């Protein structure tokens, strides 16, 4: 081989320069490659790390994002035994997007009119032509209807589920439970009063438990509505309360309303006569006046005598009795035959100032203390003079809600201790608030036999329920029509307590403007219309409430019987 010449081996300067450049380029390329590799490696590492992270902590396919607990969209309302009174369920609603309708609009309108005949074909066609983005066709649709509409197959129709409020018992206790508006917020009754609690996500899981007992409520509503229909009354109200706790076990107002269709409820139906309505309840007030007199030391014995003339002129007016004694009569007799004249004299002795103080203590001068927001304000005389004191004494000139009257009786027979009425069940979540003494225990005890006397021998005999020792008082007040007391239109009520030997429950029933019937001999007084209904209701609800009938038990009647002249049983009106 030829030995290489030096000239050949020695690189040319250009070439040397080229080598230097090339090396530079190479090293730069290496750097770039390294950079690119690092970049890719970094990306791969990030992806790998992400994958590892996802595998370890990530959301896997099929996971349902946490188990949905069974929390309704709005809290339930249940009765004292746990039966549902209001629930939120998912109902079907059918809507249409008129601007997205694909098929022939005239044909579609015809089909819609066929399955939903509430509107005519022309109406549906006009709706489809209107070009509105969204129109509800039907809310709370039945599954059958949903199926039929779905079968039309129009993509513009939207069928969706939305929560609706359902009241399974329909009209039962409707005035207590109330209803919600279209947005799902409470508009009446408990729904309104406890709206915050019912819609609060944190608290709506637990139902609101009412003190209402569904069975008692049904019995009360049924008997009251029977009486109302029978006597063609324009309205009625009823309250059942637990004497010892102030729990309202049943409260109704008639005519009834259906909370499932609040749009159709008339103002008259919506009016809660038990809490919003205030009525002059007449003689049912007399036991309070007597209790005040006993606690004030005015009446010391049921044998105390008062002159009971045929009419009593007083302070420029005259007090009348339906059936005047026309002789001196004892306090027991005044109560037995519900004498206005006798009670007016007792009230006169109490005096206006003391009477007002007592009524205030009993909570009769302010709206009734209950959780509902539909409450009426009592009406009291504007000028509370001596004559007004007399009329208030026998229940005229003062108007209170039936629930308030029940509260008064509960106070009187719970040993004289006032507990504010409550619509919530007394229990661990809602402890019994401390009571407030109004009357002495002795007065409370002695009133038992007196009110029992009214039922065994006096005006309330038709209200007796054999075996359940009912005690109570009838009340007939003339209704004020156009500012004057009507002579023929009455508001009749009966306030009673059972069993009288150990009072546990108080019930007030009231009829607004009952008409005379042949069997009432033309009378429209409480003894004839609400009295018998009261007796029937007691014999129905007392067994449910655990009151044992006993034909041999009575309160201590020796307190009053000696002071009643003759034991003859005469029919007395209020």
């Amino acid at each position, binding site marked *: 081989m030829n030995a290489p010449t030096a000239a050949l081996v020695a690189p040319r300067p250009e070439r040397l320069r080229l080598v230097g450049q090339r090396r530079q380029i190479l090293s730069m390329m290496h750097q770039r490659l390294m950079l690119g590799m690092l970049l890719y490696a970094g990306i791969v590492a990030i992806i790998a790390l992400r994958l590892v992270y996802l*595998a370890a902590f990530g959301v896997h396919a099929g996971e349902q994002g946490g*188990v949905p607990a069974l929390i309704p969209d709005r809290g339930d309302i249940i009765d004292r035994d746990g039966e549902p009174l209001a629930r939120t369920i998912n109902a079907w609603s059918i809507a249409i997007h008129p601007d997205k309708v694909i098929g022939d609009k005239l044909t579609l309108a015809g089909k819609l009119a066929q399955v939903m005949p509430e509107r005519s074909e022309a109406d549906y066609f006009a709706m489809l032509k209107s070009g509105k983005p969204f129109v509800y066709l039907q809310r709370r649709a039945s599954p059958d209807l949903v199926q039929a509409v779905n079968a039309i197959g129009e993509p513009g129709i939207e069928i969706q589920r939305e929560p609706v409020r359902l009241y399974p018992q329909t009209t039962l206790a409707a005035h207590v439970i109330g209803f919600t508006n279209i947005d799902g917020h409470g508009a009446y009754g408990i729904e309104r009063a406890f709206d915050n609690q019912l819609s609060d996500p944190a608290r709506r899981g637990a139902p609101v438990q009412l003190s209402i007992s569904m069975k008692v409520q049904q019995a009360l509503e049924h008997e009251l509505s029977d009486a109302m229909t029978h006597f063609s009354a324009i309205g009625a109200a009823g309250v059942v309360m637990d004497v010892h706790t102030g729990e309202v076990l049943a409260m109704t107002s008639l005519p009834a309303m259906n909370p499932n269709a609040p749009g159709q409820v008339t103002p008259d139906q919506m009016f809660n006569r038990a809490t919003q309505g205030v009525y002059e309840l007449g003689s049912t007030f007399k036991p309070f006046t007597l209790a005040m007199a006993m606690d004030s030391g005015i009446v010391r014995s049921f044998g105390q005598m008062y002159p009971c003339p045929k009419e009593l002129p007083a302070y420029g007016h005259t007090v009348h009795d339906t059936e005047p004694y026309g002789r001196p009569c004892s306090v027991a007799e005044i109560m037995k035959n519900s004498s206005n004249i006798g009670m007016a004299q007792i009230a006169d002795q109490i005096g206006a100032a003391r009477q007002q103080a007592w009524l205030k203590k009993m909570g009769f001068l302010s709206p009734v203390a209950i959780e509902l927001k539909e409450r009426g304000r009592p009406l009291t005389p504007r000028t509370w003079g001596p004559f007004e004191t007399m009329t208030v004494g026998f229940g005229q000139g003062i108007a209170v809600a039936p629930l308030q009257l029940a509260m008064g009786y509960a106070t009187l027979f719970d040993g004289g201790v006032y507990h504010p009425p409550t619509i919530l069940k007394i229990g661990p979540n809602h402890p019994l608030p401390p009571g407030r003494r109004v009357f002495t225990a002795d007065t409370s005890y002695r009133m038992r036999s007196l009110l029992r006397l009214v039922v065994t021998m006096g005006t309330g005999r038709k209200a007796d329920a054999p075996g359940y020792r009912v005690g109570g008082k009838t009340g007939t007040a003339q209704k004020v029509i156009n500012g004057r007391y009507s002579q023929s239109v009455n508001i009749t009520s009966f306030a009673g307590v059972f069993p009288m030997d150990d009072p546990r429950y108080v019930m007030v029933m009231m009829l607004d403007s009952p008409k005379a019937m042949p069997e009432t001999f033309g009378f429209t007084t409480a003894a004839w219309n609400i009295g018998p209904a009261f007796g029937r209701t007691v014999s129905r609800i007392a067994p449910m409430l655990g009151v044992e009938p006993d034909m041999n038990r009575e309160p201590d009647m020796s307190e009053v019987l000696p002071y009643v002249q003759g034991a003859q049983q005469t029919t007395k009106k209020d």
Partner: protein
Amino acid sequence: MSVRSFHSVYMAGTVAAAALGCYLVSLRVASERAALEGVETRIVQTQSDIRMLQTEIGTRGRLDQLEQWNASALSLSAPAANQFVEDSFQLAKLAAPDHHLEVKAPVIMASAPAPATQPVLGNDQSDQTAVTTSQDSPQQLVHEASLKIEPRETPEVEAIVSPAAARNKPAPKPLVSKPAQPKSKPEPAAAAAAKAAPKKTPRLSIASAHTETKSVKLAEADPLAPLPYGKAHAAHSQQFRDSDRRK
């Protein structure tokens, strides 16, 4: 040499296998968790369905509806006060049969004394002995009436019981002793036994006949019924009760 050179590969493989194992465990846990969540979701859905159905049933069977059905078809009404009973005794009283006097038994008894003395010819020895004893003295008759066949029965007890009955009425004794006859007849074995030992233990044998007779009769009488009117009946029933107790 070659092992060493592959060392890193083995390490990498081991690490990869371990990672894979860990991943598999994690995957397994995740899938179990998913299944559990699925079950929980189904539980909630079922609860929701139950709630829905309960609501539907409650709505269809609402009290107002039940009341209407009651008015139209069932016509049930609230129980009256007198339909409640206070205790189990009152309840038992409602189920007790009406007490009526047994006419048949006394007639048999009344006619019994006379025939009893005559059928000496009869094959029934126990009857005979019974009759003879009954004729001895009123006191002894009472003994017989309240006697029992059980060996544990002691004469002392009988003696205590009998004088009381005797004091009440000596006459009714034959009445009691009589029924022994018709009943003992169909039992030859008892008769034979009585025959065998009439001398040794006359009272016992007599008693055996009597007890048997009485037991049959007792079945007809109401042991819980109040005392019959009249002293004769009182004594009679007292004896019945005595024997009943001993049984």
